């Protein structure tokens, strides 16, 4: 058996002088990718899955509509509601909201406004169809059904 001798005299400290640099690098990554949530989502959002996802080139053209059961059922009831920006809308308000969103875009892009519909899985087609009718009325006809990728097993 014998004694275990220290073989080398190298120091056992890990050099930590580069640690701040590594941390800063991570920090910058997260700072760049972060989008601070500007609004509180008042409706439930379980985004459905799909396979044929496409990504839009210009993010500025997208306006978001959230549809789902309100989280605060005591206040807003349990029927699916439509949220745009930070307030719940009735379908009749949608045309006005779309026009406001469109006016915020530069003039050349106004025809290309895209509405991203973030719809909860459990919503039925009825309310969605009502929203789409209003969007047609407002002439904002590009719609993106937001969904997350599905893992296909074939």
């Amino acid at each position, binding site marked *: 058996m014998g004694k275990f001798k220290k073989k080398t005299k190298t120091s056992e400290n890990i050099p930590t002088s580069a640690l701040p640099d590594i941390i800063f690098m991570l920090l910058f990554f997260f700072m760049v990718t972060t989008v601070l949530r500007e609004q509180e989502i008042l409706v439930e959002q379980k985004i459905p899955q799909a396979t*044929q996802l496409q990504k839009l080139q210009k*993010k500025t053209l997208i306006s978001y509509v959230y549809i789902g059961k309100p989280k605060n059922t005591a206040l807003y009831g349990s029927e699916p509601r439509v949220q745009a920006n930070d307030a719940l809308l009735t379908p009749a308000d949608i045309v006005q909201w779309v026009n406001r969103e469109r006016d915020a875009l530069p003039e050349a892009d106004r025809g290309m406004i895209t509405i991203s519909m973030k719809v909860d899985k459990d919503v039925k087609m*009825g309310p969605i169809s009502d929203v789409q009718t209003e969007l047609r009325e407002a*002439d904002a*006809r590009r719609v993106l059904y937001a969904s997350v990728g599905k893992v296909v097993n074939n």
Partner: protein
Amino acid sequence: MAKSKSRMSQEVNAGSMADIAFLLLIFFLVTTTIASDKGILNVLPPKLDPNNPPPEIDKNERNIFTILVNANDDLLVEGEYRESADGLDEDIKAFVLNFGAPDEDAQALFNSLPQSLRAQAARDPESSDHPGEAVVSIKTNRGTSYEKYLEVFDLAKKAYFDIYAERVNLETAEYRTLPGNDDAEKALIDKGKEGIPMAISIAEPDKIGS
């Protein structure tokens, strides 16, 4: 006087720098939501003008691939009941590429297709005449779940993207995610689509049984 002060230490103490950076890092980690702007693009039809009713469209029944989804999420595809939407993409593909009664342009289109796609043309007189005429119609009920609707719509899109991709010899996922930033990519996208319009019609949901 002033000299003696500056001689004390020339360096800023950087030992706590990592701690400060960690604090910031954790803050951003917690507040980050990596934005997901992916989805399925759909273009709605223009609004109805009461003075200008849309022209009556005379389409042969054989050129329309009807998919009905009821309030129980059951499917009726071309008059046949189905429990799940699996395999629908293959059926739509076969329907679009049927070339039952191609006219002159469609025949030219047919000849321009790669061999693998030409082999899929069943030439069934009961199915679509040619891709330019073929329409996939999806009709839901107000009680249909959004999830089911999206699944069916997704499969219809998949069928078309499969055809486009096969035509330009790419994987479906590669074709779909082509950004179209330069002319070569744009030409590739157009080459896939040429003569085969993505005709997916979404009918107004009906109100019965909801």
